[in-house]
């Protein structure tokens, strides 16, 4: 389709961007990689009068290790994230989930901040954000503020961003040693959005006898409600669950694209399975062309178990 007409401003600095936004008020929209905003314009589902392009601002781009957390500039592209050694080392779950986003063309244009600001519950990164307790840095002409992931995602396609505010960066706390990660995405084609996705981080303790247990778990759910959700019931129930011995040669840290479990992927680690079966509690998945709510609930349970198992197996 063809978008309605709009003005276009390419900001030369963040200060300029927020000023233009402040002047334009609610009519303005920030443009980053355009991979979500342009489709909305073309389908005439959005009619901004002015687009403020922040996509090329160097101050918003790039990844830094800041000690306790990884700093990800809002306009860092998905492709840059996947390749970033800092992300891979400091917050591998972000790289794993990002690698499942769309296709190479979209990943070269789409940005980390854009994905968060768009707040699509079917997007893969918001669930990671809540699972890892990311912090969002927001700027406007009146200054800067920081909100937590759970406060950032307020409703379907809605965030804590006020008119005139832009997201400049996201801080991803590092979890430290002993954690394993996995993002389990269920979708119909390689380029399609998640029907359900599960982001899992698991800290594993290994006893002297070699027995492996869950010490701590974090689980974020994609597309199980209007916002990304944290499956806290699963997280507490999983603690102390016994884990199977590490199967040799799993996904060796690279993102798993396998859509099917391994042939004997369902051993009798019951506590973990019981914990995973709580995954759909407190969710409110919707119906769409690809799935009914019931089916999504079922998937959330199955996929959470898989995500936890795979995550633990990488430790």
């Amino acid at each position, binding site marked *: *389709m063809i978008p309605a*007409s709009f003005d276009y401003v390419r900001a030369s600095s963040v200060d300029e961007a927020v000023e233009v936004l402040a002047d334009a008020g609610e009519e303005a929209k920030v443009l980053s990689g355009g991979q979500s905003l342009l*489709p909305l314009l073309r389908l005439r589902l959005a009619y901004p009068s002015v687009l403020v392009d922040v996509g090329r601002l160097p101050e918003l781009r790039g990844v830094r290790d800041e000690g306790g957390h990884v700093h990800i500039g809002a306009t860092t592209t998905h492709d840059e994230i996947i390749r970033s050694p800092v992300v891979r080392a400091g917050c591998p779950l972000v790289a794993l989930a990002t690698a499942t986003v769309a*296709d190479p063309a979209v990943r070269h244009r789409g940005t980390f901040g854009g994905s968060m600001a768009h707040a699509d519950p079917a997007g893969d990164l918001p669930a990671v954000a809540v699972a890892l307790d990311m912090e969002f840095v927001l700027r406007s002409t009146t200054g800067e503020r920081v909100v937590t992931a759970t406060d950032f995602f307020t409703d379907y396609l809605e965030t804590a961003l006020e008119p005139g505010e832009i997201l400049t960066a996201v801080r991803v706390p590092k979890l430290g040693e002993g954690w394993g990660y996995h993002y389990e995405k269920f979708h*119909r*084609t390689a380029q399609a*959005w998640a029907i359900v996705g599960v982001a899992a981080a698991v800290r594993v303790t290994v006893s002297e006898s070699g027995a492996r247990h869950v010490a701590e778990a974090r689980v974020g759910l994609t597309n199980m409600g209007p916002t990304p959700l944290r499956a806290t019931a699963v997280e507490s129930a999983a603690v102390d669950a016994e884990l199977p011995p590490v199967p040799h040669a799993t996904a060796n840290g690279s993102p798993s694209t396998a859509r099917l479990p391994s*042939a004997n*992927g369902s051993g009798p680690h019951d506590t973990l399975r019981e914990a995973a079966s709580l995954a759909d509690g407190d969710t409110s998945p919707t119906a769409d*062309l690809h799935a009914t709510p019931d089916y999504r609930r079922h998937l959330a349970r199955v996929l959470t178990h898989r995500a936890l198992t795979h995550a633990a197996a990488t430790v």
Partner: protein
Amino acid sequence: MTEELDAGIVARQIAESGELGEPARNRHEVGAARRRKEDARLVTGRTRWTDNIQLPGMLYVAFLRSPMAHARVTRVDASPALHRPGVVAAFTGRDLAGEQGSLPCAWPVTEDIVVPAHPPMAVDEVRYAGEAVACVVATDRYRAYDALESIEIDYEPLPAVVDMNAALEDDAPRVHEEGNRAYVWKFGTGDIDAAFRDAPVVVERTFVQQRLIPTAMEPRAVVAQTDGDSFTLHSSTQVPHILRIMLATVTGIPEHKLRVIAPDVGGGFGSKLQVTAEEVLLLLLARRLGKPVKWTESRSEGNLTVHHGRDQIQRLSLAAEADGRLRGLRVDLLADMGAYLMLITPGIPILGAFMFNGIYKMDAYDFTCTGVFTTKMPTDAYRGAGRPEATFAIERLMDELAAELGLDPIEVRRRNWITRDEFPYTTVANMTYDSGDYEAATRKALALFGYDKLRAEQSERRDRRDPVQLGIGVSTYTEMCGLAPSRVLGSLSYGAGGWEYAAVRMLPTGKVEAVTGVSPHGQGHETAWSQIVADALGVPFEDVAVVHGDTAIAHKGMDTYGSRSLAVGGVALVRACDKVREKARHVAAHMLEASAEDIEFSEGTFRVRGTEAGTTIQEIALAVFGAHDLPDGVEASLDSDATFDPDDFSFPHGTHLCAVEVDTETGATSIRSYVAVDDIGKVINPLIVEGQVHGGIAQGIAQALFEEAVYDSEGNLLTTTMADYLLPSAADLPDFVTARTETPATGNPLGVKGVGEAGTIASTPAVVNAVVDALRPYGVRDVPMPCTPERVWRAIQGGAS
């Protein structure tokens, strides 16, 4: 980076790559795996797509489309749009009612068929969401779209008719005054009652062929212009010749004043075998405004308004002996026509009527098809057109019969198929299959697939209750292609013939222009036709140009669809080359001072039998051009043309085997291996065949697992974007293992059968059979298409469905 992306460089790299133009072995071009000579310009976009055409003073058209499936248009006023920036004109259906005519249906399959008037822009009533109701013409495309918002229109909603069964109930709301039944078409042979009476086994199933949206890579686009006297229409069409005749009839522009050009066209799959509202309307707008006009659809607009494919409910019963031998087949079809009958809408299911028996012998056959009107986009040809539906039905039924009898699905087929020594064989549907070897294709496929090993793994997984189950699907298909013998088309009430035309022009420098009446839109005809001409005239492959798609230059033809181009058009080309050679032989005899009977032709040279004396076809071309010394009574031209009308269809066949893994916890399916052994007769270019098979299989898998056009109960199309209408990409498909057996067709001198639709026809049932096979231990007997993860999961939960 920028260098890699430069189109010119890519084109040059392709052109210069060593693999291009694999040298023909034994000096024969036919059979060589030539890289396609048209690809460099097509894939780099350095060519003329309709949307690339820019003309001085060009105006752009946008259509206002009905947001409702069914409504009366109580008021419509386009004039407010005239005040918007850049708007030059705006019209409603009422404004053009006097001149827009009715879109044609060329295939009234029965005498009492209901063919409702089909105005290109709705006048009083809209009958599907997306139907054009008004248009704006502006100085650019954006302004045209913006101005649509100011057109004032009021609708009085009428009830949508979405479900075919409901549509046929007595008190159903009517799509057209004449009722919702477009036609009932019957066909039968043998004593069907006897076949079913006391039959030891009867398998009854209802299968639904979901509605599909043909998704050509290039969206439709139309450019119309006039010099005040005659008209030229560029369209992204696969049928420029048919279009010209039909547009002349609809618009009243005399045929000789109308030139239709299909420049390079980026795919069609049947969807561009149509006379569309937009093509008619753009001509009318060019006539009214005296300016060139252009329209290019957006993808969402296309999903709504490109004619759709499939959409049948198939009620089937198959009677068999206890040993699995078939007795008879009953087919009762409901075929969704959508809101109107377009060019060949009613005929599509009828093309399938002769294929439901597949490759099998049986005593009796009974076929009924009811065409049903609904308030949806009209359906029409889509890759395979009637034959995939029929093949799906019989191949699914054969697997069901095997399951019922506890037999291997291959064994049931073997007990029923026509054996190699029975050809030519006249089937229960009165088709005479000229040749084939089902045993050979199946043997090869089983070996490539590792059938026994996979069956062993399947039973091991079943025993182990593995959450990932394995299913094996079989499809031993045939299809009728090479559309079509004109006499058959006549007997089926089709409005035209099925012949094809070709002409060969010998240029003075010895180069050749081959004019063809078929209209390639991605298939690679320029390469294959060049190979044929190169062999027939003994000229280099590079010296042949293929000319097509312009009614002023390739003036005659029946275009491209139904796997007909080679089997019909290729043969016409061979005949035209024969005539050129014959003419040249007489000139050669004169030049060599011998009698024509003593002249032999081989690899481009005419020689006097038994001597070294000879002259090449290029030398003759120059001599004829000079015309200084031609024999008496010989005209100064080697150019020749020919028309070929096949005696019968051709019948490619093959065996496709598919292994699918099903994750029983989620319902996800994953194709583990896919083997296709096709018998398409003689092969002109194996690389092109490979491409057709790969694309065809992908499209058939897409129907089995991914694609579905979904309308809600109000008749709104929900799958208007590619996020909702899912197409698989290479990442979702396995590597295909392809091979061939070769039983030449006997009905044409090339021995070719056609390959354009084979992959699509064969693969859908192979995949669904595999999915169902995986789930038989769960009591599952069917999974509706597309077999989405949720449907598979529900089938497992629910058992037999």
